[in-house]
């Protein structure tokens, strides 16, 4: 580690302890002066850009340092004051030269509206108010569309903060298009116009501002002195909102909540109070827990995995899940259960293994500070929630975590809960089978491989973005990059869907192939950890090799780039008969000579080509 890197770490340490605006700003400027070398690991490099209508260096500084605090090496482009138009339109501008992964478009409504807009509004006709909305929104969407076209970045568009003041007073909403409604409509229209562009997101700045307190979002001194759009307190909050997208883009979303039971999902201790004695019902105390459970269920229903880690007699606790009339979360909502007297850290490790996710994808919720501390010390990578003592605050604590974000919600997300029921049944069958092959044969596995079409593309991009374990190269491609790989003749993006008699897993695998004369290179090969252990990856690879043969290729080259998490994929090429070619800087490449070898579809898998 170089001297500059040490100094950067030292600077970040102080920000971590106290992430105030002043400390974030100071860290940003100090690190800029050190100009540390970009990370050698491409996966840790992150380009961010903010362009817009005001002085954006402060918000850029907060965003930059927060990205750095997550372990990335950002390089940040800050647009000039009101020069976003030129920066977006000119394909060779500094903005695009910076090759950002994320571009924030932060344009204040007031910079686009006529100077007399506020004064004239009371006397404007409905028609001209309506026309002004359309004009305002289309000037933003036009820029967003250009950004989307000219780069592969994820584009974040701030919506408008709806003013709290109206010259029309309390009669504001007695008019067809009152002053506040003007901005609400504009926000609505902005979302509608950008909804179908998958790489462009509207950041609900209005909601972030409301939650924070609109009267404190601007410091009018710095606003008039230097056109700084947000106050010192609010700027880091806005950066936090951008971070949600950044983490989702980089595949850093948490996937699973591990829950304690006593005094977490219900009040009291089941082993002492009994099923009639615990607090769980439609009035307080009891309703707090029901509503907390309902919020958990809402996350489950969109793909967050739930699991239980509880010190209890199994029979006592399971009885509540199965029989209590007011228990919201039933047995089938949990992907795995550990109800025993083992220490909770050991349980959590087992749960991670059973569910097949990394410990760093887990959020741990337990009312007992001692248990939390134990998990924190044993597995620092697990996110341990500081649950407040007051159960009435459980639900709001959960709702404020903001760590489960993914950029698109797919059919697979919605059905994830059911898939884990299938998984548990599969496990039971595995235990009763005599050999692993017998077990696999009874599953009636069907693997569908096809070239990615628009229909499955969102899921394919999602898998590229978040798959960590069974991922040979961990190259993260954006929606736009994936699209160009699909469209180009010299590359192909395959997707794999898996089904067996216990259920349809949907699209769970992606492979990207680059074709060059007689040699095909597998640029990316990844698979959801949910289907590990059924040899479906062999069928997937067999199909690619068959295609390579048909196309007249002579060899298939694969790469493995090790990360902290992808050891399950380490021996992939070796076990499919590839020969090691060379060790590269951050991994190894492998080759299969098609004249000498091939890969067969396992006989327990029905490969369906589409």
């Amino acid at each position, binding site marked *: 580690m170089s001297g500059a890197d040490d100094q950067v770490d030292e600077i970040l340490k102080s920000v971590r302890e106290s992430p105030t605006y*002043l400390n974030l700003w*100071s860290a940003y*400027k*100090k690190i800029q002066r050190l100009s540390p070398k970009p990370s050698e690991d491409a996966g840790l490099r992150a380009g961010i850009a903010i362009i817009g209508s005001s002085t954006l260096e402060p918000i850029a500084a907060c965003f930059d340092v927060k990205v750095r605090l997550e372990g990335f090496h950002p390089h940040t482009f800050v647009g000039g004051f009101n020069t976003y138009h030129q920066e977006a339109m000119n394909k060779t501008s500094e903005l695009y030269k910076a090759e950002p992964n994320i571009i924030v478009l932060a344009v204040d409504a007031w910079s686009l509206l006529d100077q007399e807009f506020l004064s004239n509004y009371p006397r404007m006709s409905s028609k001209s108010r309506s026309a002004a909305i359309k004009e305002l929104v289309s000037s933003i969407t036009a820029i967003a569309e250009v950004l989307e076209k000219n780069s592969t970045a994820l584009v974040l568009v701030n919506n408008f903060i709806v003013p709290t003041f109206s010259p029309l007073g309390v009669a504001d909403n007695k008019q067809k298009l009152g002053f506040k409604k003007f901005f609400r409509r504009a926000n609505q229209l902005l979302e509608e116009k950008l909804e179908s562009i998958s790489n462009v997101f509207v950041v609900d700045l209005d909601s972030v501002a409301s939650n924070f307190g609109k009267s404190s979002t601007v*410091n009018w*001194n*710095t606003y008039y*002195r*230097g056109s700084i759009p947000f106050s*010192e307190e609010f700027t880091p909050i806005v950066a936090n909102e951008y971070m949600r997208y950044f983490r989702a883009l980089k595949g850093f979303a948490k996937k699973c909540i591990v829950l304690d039971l006593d005094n977490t999902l219900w009040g009291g201790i089941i082993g002492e109070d009994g099923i009639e004695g615990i607090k769980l019902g439609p009035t307080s105390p009891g309703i707090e827990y029901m509503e907390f459970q309902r919020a958990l269920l809402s996350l489950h229903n969109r793909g967050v995995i739930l699991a239980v880690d509880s010190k209890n007699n199994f029979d006592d606790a399971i009885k509540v899940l199965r029989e209590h009339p007011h228990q919201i979360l039933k047995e089938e909502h949990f992907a795995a259960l550990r109800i025993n007297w083992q220490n909770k850290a050991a349980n959590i490790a087992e749960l991670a293994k059973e569910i097949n996710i990394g410990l760093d994808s887990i959020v741990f919720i337990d009312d007992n500070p001692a248990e939390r501390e134990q998990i924190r010390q044993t597995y620092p990578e697990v996110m341990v929630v500081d649950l407040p003592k007051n159960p009435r605050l459980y639900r709001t604590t959960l709702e404020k975590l903001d760590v489960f974000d993914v950029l698109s919600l797919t059919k697979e997300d919605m059905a994830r809960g059911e898939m884990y029921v299938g998984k548990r049944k599969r496990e039971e069958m595995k235990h009763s089978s005599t050999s692993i092959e017998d077990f696999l044969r009874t599953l009636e596995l069907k693997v569908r491989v096809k070239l990615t079409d628009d229909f499955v593309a969102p899921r394919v991009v999602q898998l590229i973005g978040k798959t960590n374990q069974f991922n040979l190269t961990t190259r993260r491609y954006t929606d736009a990059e994936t699209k160009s790989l699909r469209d180009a003749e010299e590359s192909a993006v395959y997707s794999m869907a898996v089904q067996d008699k216990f259920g349809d897993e949907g699209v769970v695998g992606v492979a990207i192939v680059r074709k060059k004369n007689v040699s095909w290179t597998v640029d990316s090969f990844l698979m959801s950890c949910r289907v590990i252990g059924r040899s479906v990856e062999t069928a997937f690879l067999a199909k690619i090799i068959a295609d390579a043969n048909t196309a007249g290729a002579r060899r298939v080259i694969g790469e493995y780039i090790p990360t902290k998490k992808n050891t399950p994929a380490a021996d992939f090429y070796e076990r499919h008969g590839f020969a090691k070619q060379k060790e590269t800087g951050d991994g190894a490449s492998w080759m299969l000579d098609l004249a000498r070898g091939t890969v067969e579809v396992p006989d327990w898998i029905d490969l369906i080509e589409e």
Partner: protein
Amino acid sequence: MTDAEHTLAEIISKVLLLDMNELTDDLKRGDYEPWDSMAHLILISEIENEFGIFFEDDEVVDIWTVADIRRLLSKKTSS
């Protein structure tokens, strides 16, 4: 150093990217490169927020050295 003096020194050193012990009274805006207009803006607003005071525009323009800041702040907080 009083608590207030310490707080002030902390703000100035953070904005001007110095360690506390590197801070001198004669450090001058214009001469010292990190003290640019943006740093000045942030310095003024951080001091305003921290001490609950307000600098007039001509005061902001007239602040050139660390000594100027100390002088103006003590005038404002003592009255």
